[in-house]
């Protein structure tokens, strides 16, 4: 059974290999190969899951060692896997949602001539992501971490003919580099501190290291998590990443890859538990991001960017929960899974809307679509109810637990974090209701401007229609997850018992009773919903965005994130590079070119010895032999 763990990663990797090297002859069936291998991986995941359920306690953790890459003394670069309950949760989410999105993409990318390549990249992503969550050591995790970064880059820029997509891909890659640097340095510090990369020994001996080192490692890991999970201050790439095809946004930039930061922090729980300062930093990052993303999400008219703001905000919740320590880890992962269902479903719904609307993304040009695409409307609607935390649906169970855990942290911290989480729930209700109303309700606002634009290029009239079956079936399945997953996890606290052996769990002490918090959450939810209805339901939505308040305008510009980065980082960076280029030209190049010239000159001279005459070769051999013999004799002093 243990050997199957490698096959989990191997199947999609094989798919990527076949699809990316197979050439055009695979164009006709390539997408089905991609789907098949994703499904194979999922099937293996289910098999392993069933096997795991049959065991109990420590026996549930399986390991599999494939090989070591050039071991040198204690430096063991092991390619070995560890499958425990935490990894298993991710495996099922990644392969399950991944397979659905593969199938969805068959329809979505039907008219793209590079569809085979697209599936190759998707399979590559699955392989890298599975490697990330299955690695039994930080070094291999880092390989997967970089792998998903690469796949993300390739897929954001998949439509590279669009300059905006190419730029967005570069932006995502560069911003992620900052986070990756953090993770790589953290891994190096870990190795010098603990002498190994393997999770087991590192985490078991975490408390033996000095406080300063632990805090340092924790903060560096947090930096890595910020990059991959789009948390403040490395959040700026996620909005632009929506330039990628919508299935990519759903799989990578909503359900799986962006949650890698949460995995990293949860997996490294022992380190964070021993470093309270780093843990506090994690909660602060989570709280700030959950508000940041929510505010940005309120102001965006682009449906995918609104959802991206929401993703950022929801991951903020998870990071916040993970920062709370053992009272929060389980709920962070639980929210991660439920979010994986409903956010993937929402993105697929958005893709379906775009599919029917000539790739229009501006919600001000939607309206009244519920009658045209009923399946999309219902599945999107269920995802919507789940994310705002409508009682009984998935989001309700997981988000509510996080809010409670935040209050349970105790002291002033607890009140502040809890308050922020509560406020975030209200804003979530507001912006998601806004998206829902602008897209599916109200008057239809599409098909007008074609007539209004005399002399302009005649836009083809959109004919909103329901998407093909390959697209709607995954949406329906995900909608089921959005509705039931949270409740299922909460029956008898089954998810808690499942994950507790890996992450640990302690109950916090709530300052007020849980019922009060639940009631407050519902009240805040109702307020957010009501405000949104007042503005977008009762009044007609203007086709052109009004100027708006200062905050609205700032939010439309992503709260000035790019302006800030430009002034604080890009400009000084440019000065630094100019200085370095000057140094490079004057000092380094001089030395390099000088060396190169002297090697070249020497080479030209030595070459002349090779004159093509056997007699001179023989002489050189004879001379060499005489020298060698003489030298040997000299060594002995005979």
């Amino acid at each position, binding site marked *: 059974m243990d050997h199957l763990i490698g096959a989990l990663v191997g199947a999609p990797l094989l798919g990527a290999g076949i699809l990316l090297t197979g050439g055009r002859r695979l164009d006709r069936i390539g997408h089905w190969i991609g789907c098949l291998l994703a499904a194979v991986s999922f099937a293996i995941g289910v098999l392993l899951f069933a096997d795991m359920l049959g065991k109990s306690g420590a026996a549930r953790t399986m390991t599999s060692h494939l090989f070591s890459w050039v071991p040198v003394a204690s430096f063991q670069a092991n390619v070995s896997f560890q499958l425990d309950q935490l990894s298993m949760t991710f495996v099922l989410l990644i392969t399950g949602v991944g397979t659905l999105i593969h199938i969805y993409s068959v329809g979505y990318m039907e008219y793209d001539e590079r569809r085979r390549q697209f599936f190759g990249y998707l399979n590559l992503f699955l392989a890298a992501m599975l490697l990330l969550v299955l690695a039994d050591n930080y070094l291999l995790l880092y390989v997967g971490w970089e792998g998903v970064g690469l796949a993300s880059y390739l897929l954001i820029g998949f439509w590279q003919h669009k300059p905006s997509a190419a730029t967005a891909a570069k932006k995502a890659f560069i911003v992620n580099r900052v986070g990756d640097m953090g993770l790589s340095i953290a891994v190096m510090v870990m190795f010098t501190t603990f002498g190994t990369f393997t999770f087991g020994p590192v985490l078991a001996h975490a408390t033996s290291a000095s406080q300063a080192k632990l805090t340092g490692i924790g903060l560096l890991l947090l930096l890595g998590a910020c990059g991959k999970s789009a948390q403040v201050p490395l959040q700026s790439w996620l909005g632009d990443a929506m330039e990628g095809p919508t299935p990519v946004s759903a799989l990578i930039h909503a359900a799986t890859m962006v949650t890698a930061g949460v995995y990293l922090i949860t997996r490294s729980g022992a380190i964070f538990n021993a470093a309270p300062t780093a843990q506090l930093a994690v909660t602060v990052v989570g709280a700030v991001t959950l508000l940041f993303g929510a505010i940005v999400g309120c102001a965006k008219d682009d449906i995918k960017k609104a959802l991206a703001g929401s993703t950022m905000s929801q991951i903020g919740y998870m990071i916040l929960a993970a920062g709370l320590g053992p009272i929060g880890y389980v709920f962070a992962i639980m929210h991660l899974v439920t979010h994986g269902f409903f956010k993937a479903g929402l993105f697929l719904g958005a893709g379906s809307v775009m599919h029917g609307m000539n790739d229009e993304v501006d919600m001000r040009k939607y309206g009244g679509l519920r009658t045209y695409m009923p399946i999309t409307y219902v599945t999107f609607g269920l995802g919507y109810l789940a994310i705002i935390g409508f009682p009984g649906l998935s989001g309700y169970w997981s988000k509510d637990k996080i809010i409670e855990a935040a209050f349970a942290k105790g002291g002033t911290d607890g009140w502040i974090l809890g308050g922020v989480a509560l406020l975030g729930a209200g804003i979530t209700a507001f912006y998601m209701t806004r998206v829902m109303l602008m897209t599916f309700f109200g008057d239809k606002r599409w098909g007008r401007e074609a007539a209004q634009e005399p002399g302009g290029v005649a836009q083809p009239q959109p004919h909103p229609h329901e998407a093909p079956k390959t697209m709607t079936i995954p949406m329906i399945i995900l909608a089921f997850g959005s509705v039931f997953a949270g409740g299922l996890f909460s029956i008898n606290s089954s998810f808690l018992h499942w994950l507790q052996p890996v992450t640990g769990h302690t109950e916090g002490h709530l300052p007020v009773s849980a019922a009060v918090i639940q009631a407050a959450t519902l009240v805040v939810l109702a307020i957010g919903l009501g405000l949104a209805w007042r503005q977008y339901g009762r009044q007609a939505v203007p086709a052109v965005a009004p100027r708006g308040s200062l905050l609205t305008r700032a939010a439309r510009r992503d709260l000035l994130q790019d302006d800030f980065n430009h002034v604080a980082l890009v400009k000084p960076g440019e000065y630094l590079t100019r200085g370095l280029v000057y140094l490079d030209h004057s000092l380094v190049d001089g030395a390099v070119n000088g060396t190169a010239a002297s090697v070249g000159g020497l080479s030209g001279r030595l070459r002349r010895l090779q004159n093509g005459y056997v007699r001179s070769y023989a002489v050189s051999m004879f001379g060499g032999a005489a020298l060698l013999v003489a030298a040997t004799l000299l*060594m002995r002093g005979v």
Partner: protein
Amino acid sequence: MTTATAVSIHSLWTTLADSTPGAATTSTAFQTPKVEYAQLSPILIVFGAAILGVLAEAFLPRRSRYTAQLAISVIGLAAAFAAVVALAADGYASTKSHIAAMGAVAVDGPALFLQGTILLVALVAAFTFAERRLDPAAHGNRVDSFAAQGSAVPGSEQEKAAVKAGFTTTEIFPLLLFAVGGMLVFPAANDLLTLFVSLEVFSLPLYLLCALSRRHRLMSQESAVKYFLLGAFSSAILLFGVALLYGYAGTVSYGGIADVVGGTAKLTPALANSTATDALLLIGGAMVVIGLLFKVAAVPFHMWTPDVYQGAPTPVTGFMAAATKVAAFGALLRLLYVVLPGLRWDWRPVMWAVAILTMVIGAIIAVTQTDVKRLLAYSSIAHAGFILAGVVAVSPDGVSSVLFYLGAYSFVTLGAFAVVTLVRDAGGEATHLSRWAGLGRRSPLVAAVFAVYLLAFAGIPLTSGFAGKFAVFKAAAEGGALPLVIIGVISSAIAAFFYIRVIVLMFFSEPQPGAPSVAIPSLLTSSAIAVGVAVTLVLGVAPQYFLDLAGKASVFVR
């Protein structure tokens, strides 16, 4: 000639030398030498196949010779490889390793590892020898890279007639097998005479093969003559060294000489009182080593390499560059580790100097080369230097790293030369570097494969070249040769320049007008190239299994 006869001659000879003069005159009984045929089976199979090839050449009609020869070669080599694996699996590489055939041939870990490597290399090389799709068909006959008729004077009427008749030199296959047979004995030779005989057995066919190019026949013949003359010169030096060592120790067996050097056995009575005995030992040892350094193309015995590599038919160059190096380094290791370990303090500094010179000069001269084959020749010289760095480590790690490096390097070399055969214009292979400009634009796959080989030569991680270099330098550093490692790394940096330059040339230069085309090879060359790439990447990504294998095979029998 087979080993069996060589062994009997030699054992007769040593028996006479060992016995007292009185006994020799009276004793008329001739003892049958004891030969462990099963343990020598890889060697015997290859020589048997070679003889079968000669017979096929004599009795089969011309039409069916190509198929028959190819089949004999491939089956013979594969069977010999299977025999090597069987011997290794039977424990002859570790617990049961011993010296067979009356002390002539060692059957131990390094011998079997190197024999296995040589056989695999030869198998892949046989594919490139048999390639018949690259040259345009001459008068409707598919032809290979070899001369239509070796005996025809270049440019003569006789040659034209031979070409027109569609003749091909199928004798190359038995020649290849004889060379391989000699190479199998060479690293396993356990006395100086077997060493010398096997050296000649594998060298003579190579001289002939070098002269048999279909295109540029004059250049090919010139290279063969050069190789032969200088090879004969080096053989003479080696043989002289053998004589001096025999004079010193009174025996030619490795173990016997080592015992005398180590002081556990007595000197020859005649020389016991002589004052110059150590000089005999040192000069003799140095001269034998020189003979081997010639074969591995170490500076200053490297001058033949570029000329011969350039002139020889490219498949032969690939085979020679790969397999000769494996065999010769194997023999060098056995000589230094079994015969002369007692003299370590004498030969190590000298070998240091040779290694440094070889690395530096090989890398520097390569910088200004303009011909792909010469470039690869100098690169092979530089690589000989890197391997020597592992040889001077004088530790089991040193042996295993050299074994690994040889395996990795030989497949890269073979593959790289196979790619060279593909890039052609009207005059045959287009080997001038300027003709390769922009190759990546026109034939991305071929250029990418060649780039993989170049990166492996340069020792870039995730290729076998990195793993090999790392192992060798690690062993050398642990063996106290840190300066050698530093110079090695600097040489690698210089070498990286000209490897990367070719990549830049292929991918970032505009193609010239009338640039050469890339021939579509048959399955034979394609599979040779594919095997090379696969080995390069597997040994680069997951080298550990093979490093362990080499580590297990690193103990010489005494």
